[in-house]
């Protein structure tokens, strides 16, 4: 069985089907990009994997174990980290304390948690801000803090939700470089991003969804040229 498998995921909110019959898998070390128009269900897929929402139906396997019945904190403990599209910094805590909060998952010692947090803030180029309160960070740094905090939990699979949204081109480049470094460290990644150029450059494969269903899945070039994808993004006239 693959490293990560999602089988026939369905999520309904009342009458609205946000995710419908979605299946995909990942191999270890891969980056899977997920694209789709606004409201197509990308964030919902992340919320299903990280168990912030229960599935309506379907199954999720991680390293051969079924995980869709476990509580959210267990998912993280098993090695699936996530960031939030709408960032959720621990506002009145310093950057280093934010990252330490993540590091405590694998240690009970304050000293070891701090040491690991120092390493990770440096890795994420946040070192110079480590004593700054998270609420005084601008958005680009808040996005990076989301990643740093999540890395501190030592994930094997990382879910990144729109890490580049709201960043200027230079900040985006920094974020992409960071994502590459994370991949080089051996972490498998599912990434949601709106900027096609970013997704084409960084993903090994891309899953395109619309109205919660798969419209294309494959190599970036194949997906970008897929008529359904062009239709979803540009409208019928261009297909």
């Amino acid at each position, binding site marked *: 069985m693959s490293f990560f498998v999602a089988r026939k995921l369905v999520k309904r909110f009342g009458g609205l089907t946000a995710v419908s019959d979605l299946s995909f898998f990942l191999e270890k070390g891969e980056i899977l990009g997920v694209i789709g128009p606004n409201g197509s269900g990308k964030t919902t897929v992340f919320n299903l994997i990280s168990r*912030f929402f229960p599935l309506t139906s379907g199954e999720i396997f991680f390293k051969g174990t079924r995980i869709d019945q476990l509580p959210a904190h267990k998912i*993280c403990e098993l090695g699936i980290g996530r960031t939030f599209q709408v960032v959720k910094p621990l506002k009145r805590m310093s950057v280093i304390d934010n990252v330490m909060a993540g590091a405590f998952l694998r240690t009970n010692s304050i000293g070891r948690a701090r040491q690991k947090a120092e390493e990770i803030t440096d890795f994420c180029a946040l070192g110079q801000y480590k004593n700054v309160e998270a609420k005084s960070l601008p958005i680009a740094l808040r996005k990076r803090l989301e990643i740093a905090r999540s890395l501190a939990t030592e994930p094997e699979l990382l879910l990144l939700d729109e890490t580049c949204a709201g960043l200027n081109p230079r900040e985006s480049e920094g974020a992409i470089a960071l994502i590459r470094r994370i991949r080089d460290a051996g972490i498998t990644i599912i990434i949601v991003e709106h900027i096609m150029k970013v997704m084409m450059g960084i993903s090994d494969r891309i899953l395109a969804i619309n109205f919660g269903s798969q419209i294309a899945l494959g190599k970036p070039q194949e997906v970008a040229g897929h008529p359904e994808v062009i239709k979803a993004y540009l409208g019928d006239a261009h297909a």
Partner: protein
Amino acid sequence: MKNKSVLINIAVLLAALLVPVVIKAPYHLHIIILIIIWSIIGTAWNLLGGYAGQVSFGHAAFFGLGAYSAGLLKFHFDISPWWGVLLGPIIATLVSLPIGLICFRLRGPYFALAMLSLGEIFRLLFTNLSNFTNGARGVMIMPDITSKMFYYYISLFILVLTLFTTYRIVNSKVGYYLVSIREDQDAATSLGIPTTLYKNLALLPSAFFTGMAGAFYMNYVAFIDPNIVFNLSNVSVMVILVVMLGGVATTWGPTVGAAIYIFLGELFRATLGSANVLVFGVLVCLIILFLPNGIVGEMNTLKRLVRRKKGLPGGERNEFLRG
């Protein structure tokens, strides 16, 4: 830095040990003992409400259970009410357990509301179960010891125990987890923190020490009734004011808050006649309005401003109450 604060704490403790040597007037010692009792309740409340962000409007429940544990031991079984100082906290903790297990699963103000009603339920229960509790007539004991100095040292011991325990909890992994939960529960969950469990880990010691304060109160004051110890405004809400005044989520905040609250309250009662409650209320409002982080909290902010760290462009400004 760390050694310095240890030294300061030891100095404060030594000074506290000498208080009855310097202050001999029973009335003055009485006020100080009241301050200590409120410091204990405030410190206990602060662990849950301040650090973990789970605001309780019903700590009177634990206070009253502690007090009645001590009182009823004597009343029914003729056992020394001092055993209540052990039994009271245990009973308060046992009662807190199901409350936490039920309420902390739910999001939103359920816990605050459940605690509010818990305090009121116990007040009514203890008023009406008069066979067991002696109802509204209350419980009176004849204390063996009347020396204020004795009560001073006992209460000081309980306060030190409470401060030390909460300090150890706050400055550990548990403390980081509690504050993380307060700041953002979703973020905490995403970091693998079992939020329900940790909220309970804050609730249990909070109930425990509040119960201990209640049992001591029974021994000290020698008379309780349900309207005194289960009182919503004079216990449950008062402890919140005490902590807000001194500084939410600070080690010394509750103690400083209790000192100011009790001292000013007594001062106004002695000098202002019937207007004292009004003046006192207005003053508390003003302090909370102008020092939203409490006295200790504002001092910490000041210290940080002195060691000024540059703000970053694009970040939020400090969130003061005033524009």
